[in-house]
């Protein structure tokens, strides 16, 4: 394992713990507010996350935590692409880039179609 891999590993662990902490705060706030998990939560509104966090709304913490959880494996793929490029393995870089392209297309399509 190279130093780069180690630092990426550490970063991913930290992000995972932060995400879990945010989710835990969100769930505790849900419990405190008496919100049922089946009551139907608000859709993702990135612009509302900051205000939700400031006003201690569970949705803000939950969405930020979920976004961090979603971002973690994507970060890993980016890191893998960089690591493969450094190691001189163009085929594997291509695979990593293709995975990122699929993710990018799905996010763009979702953003465009609402």
């Amino acid at each position, binding site marked *: 394992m190279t130093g780069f891999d180690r630092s990426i590993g550490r970063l991913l662990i930290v992000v*995972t713990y932060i*995400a*879990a902490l945010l*989710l*835990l705060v*969100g*769930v505790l706030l*849900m419990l405190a507010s008496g*919100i*049922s*998990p*089946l*009551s*139907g*939560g*608000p*859709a*993702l509104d990135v612009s509302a996350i900051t205000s939700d966090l400031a006003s201690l709304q*569970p*949705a803000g913490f*939950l*969405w930020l*935590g*979920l976004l961090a*959880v979603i971002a973690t494996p994507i970060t890993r793929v980016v890191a893998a692409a960089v690591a493969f490029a450094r190691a001189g393995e163009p085929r594997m870089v291509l695979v990593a880039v293709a995975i990122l392209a699929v993710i990018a297309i799905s996010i763009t399509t*979702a953003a465009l*179609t609402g």
Partner: protein
Amino acid sequence: MTDTSASAPGQPTAQTAGLASGGAGSNRFRGARNYLALIPFHAYIFLFLILPTAIVAVGAFTTASGQPTADNVSRLFTDQTFIDAFTKSIELAVSTAIAGAIIGGLLAWAVVRGDPNGPLRQFVIAASGVLAQFGGVMLAFAFLATFGFNGLATMFVRDVLHLDVLTDASWLYSLTGLVVVYTYFQIPLMLIVFLPSLDGLRQEWYDASSSLGGSSWSFWRYVGGPILAPAFLGALLLLFTNAFSAYATAAALISQGASIVTLQIAGSLQSEVVIGQENVGKALALGNANINCHIHGEVDPYVAGPTAIGVFLGASIGSRVAHRIDLRILRFLFVAVLLYTAVQMLLKVAS
């Protein structure tokens, strides 16, 4: 081991007789323990198979107030809506079962003829294992996102290639669409179910048939065919029941007009016209709300948050303590939790 060679045959020594009787006793005890171990399985079968079947069977012959009646069943043969639904369900199940069996069977044959340790075989089997389970709402969503009115393939063909081939996506929401979608998971299921039988066919049998002057046709007619027929017919029956009882895919694709039996059943239970089914209707409405949510690809933070925390805690704690816990205890613990959850679910639906 006791040496019995010195004693006369048929006259076991006291020592061996004692051992024999003791062994039989412990065998009996072991047998009883084996049956005890099956109790969770039988309880599971009773709760999820026998009890629901009994409830449905009794309900079919009683009125809402609990009086015995044959009207419910007789309507199945007199009401044109139900007759149409059964006809369409059978058409759907038969066509997808036959298509799945033929294509899946041929695919399995192609896999068997290939390198037994080759990457193609591993890939096809792994992919089939995943795709055979890729049913329900996920599959419906995949097809809607690809071939729906605003699907990726539809829009690509229309806007980029400027062709009118896929523009009219209404076929997807009809029985034809269901046939295509169902076949998608029937083919890999057939491959998984039928492959072991094909693997069992020995090359030696073919060689023996050839050395006795048999042709390829006579081998399949008298040897291969009869050996594979039970497995093939069993798989065909499995595919038929798989398609006949499928609900979620059809429910997600066909939102208006309950055209097949499973949708009719759901419609009957949810109908506000039918008196005395309000609670079941509520339970199904909750299910529908979830289904609609998933179709649009939305994530509900109130559900996802607690789930993610549960997974995180479970994985963190589990990876640390799992290797220290006796697997038998873990198994019993899981059975107990699953049974508790199952009973809770049944009680919730019943209330």
